């Protein structure tokens, strides 16, 4: 399998990373090299094998329904590139 320019462009779009047109081929080459490498897995027979979920065969631990966190809007927005009155300010979202 190999990635053409359109696929690289689509993947970059999905990943929200702008890629200049002149970089598409190089990037495609690198990605194809990696994909070619991982495609060795095609040789493995995994019929009847469950995907791995956890090393320790643990079960999910539950917590109680108690309010133990929050109440610090200034800390939440303290690192924001733009904030106003404890809101995050972001480029306008058009719906």
């Amino acid at each position, binding site marked *: 399998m190999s990635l053409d320019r359109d696929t690289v462009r689509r993947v970059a779009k999905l990943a929200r990373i702008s890629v200049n047109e002149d970089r598409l081929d190089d990037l495609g080459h690198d990605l194809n090299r990696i994909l070619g490498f991982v495609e060795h897995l095609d040789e493995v027979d995994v019929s009847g094998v469950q995907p791995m*979920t956890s090393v320790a065969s*643990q079960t999910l631990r539950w917590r109680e329904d108690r309010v133990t966190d929050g109440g610090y809007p200034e800390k939440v*927005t303290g690192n924001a590139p733009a904030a106003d009155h404890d*809101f*995050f300010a972001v480029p306008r979202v058009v*719906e």
Partner: protein
Amino acid sequence: MNLIEGATGPWEIVIGLEVHAQVSSNAKLFSGAATAFGAEPNSQVSFVDAGMPGMLPVINAWCVEQAVRTGMGLNAEINLRSVFDRKNYFYPDLPQGYQISQYKQPVVGRGSVTIELSDGTVKVIGVERLHLEQDAGKSLHDQHPSMSYVDLNRSGVALMEIVSDPDMRSAEEASAYVEKLRQIVLYLGTCDAVMAEGSMRADVNVSVRRPGEGFGTRCEIKNVNSMRFIRQAIEYEARRQIAIIEDGGKIDQETRLFDPNKGETRSMRSKEEAHDYRYFPDPDLLPLELDPAWVEGIRASLPELPDAKKARFVAEYGLSDYDARTLVSDRASADYYEAVAKGRDAKLACNWVTTDLFGHLNKDGKTIGDSPVSAAQLGQLIDRIVDRTISGRLAKEVFELMWETGRDPDAIIEEKGLKQVTDTGAIAAVVDRVIAENPDKVAEVQGGKEKLLGWFTGQVMKLSGGKANPQAVNDILRAKILGG
């Protein structure tokens, strides 16, 4: 069949709903931040909810339990093993860049909901699944000319997404379905279902087709948050689609937004791009495994649900289908009714509750929870009618006073001296007086105009200030005039 007439013939609407019901919980699904409605911006946000680096989710047991309870309310399979997946997409109100949801293995599988329409038709709507997921934050677009403001208080709040089959064929069916879901979650106490606060909202999938044909292309109308809007959105969207097809056009599968001000749906530009959510199991969480004994413990503790309660009301109290349905529409009303009906004439109790009490509640815009008349008081009033302390007519007056003052009926009857006169001697004296004053009318009655007896009854009642027992008055009048 529910059809709408287009320019070129009849069309059938096909509707499926994805209802998001917020779990009534103190804290969020994966963090310890609070969930209360209307808090100051970002004041109910933990670092987990803000998608800060290195933050990890830990699941809230209560939310799992409420999903299981709700699933049981939908007569659904409970999956003892389910998996949390990440649904990846970028949006400013989605701080992690993914929503933790359940994709291939939801906690609740197939179930069903029975709805009843205004013409009495009963229909079963299939439920495909119920899964747990996180809510996103909220973007405000009117605070700044060029920026949107993001408040993450809702980010991470637990939602139960209840997905129906495309089984509904009209706006009425869709709203009956949502109303029934509301009843069920309210009975279970798993969700507040306050649509105005967003604790219950629906994504509505609408398509149209010629009767008998396969499904058409559907549009999804996002986040419709009132019953009225659900109906309006469906009506508008169906007509829009029919018009396009009848003009020779094709429906684009797309996400649309309902504009309540215009009563229209419109395409969401921000969601134009093809979605590819890249679901995969969240590696920060392990599969959710439920102990069968725990699940059965929940089943054993479920309250009686609306359908079962209604059937019981019909069987046990002899109520009409309609009355039973009215009474079970919410749990508090049903409980109130049962408290009134217990050990009394069940139908009389039903009349008082559905007519007088509900009438007053409606008029004053009150819920049963803030009724000034308690079930015990209403029961006492009914007892006074049955034991003939007061007449049914006077009882209405007493009820008015109870509504205004919240006092017991006995106290009001005593204070106002409304106690019915049943002493036949006293009544006979009044009857004698009326007979003596109206010899011509007596003659008319005796001449065969028995209808006039009613006039005599009225006169006697009037003179007794309404307190005379009407039956006793009637009996004495008959005896004295007709020599019965």
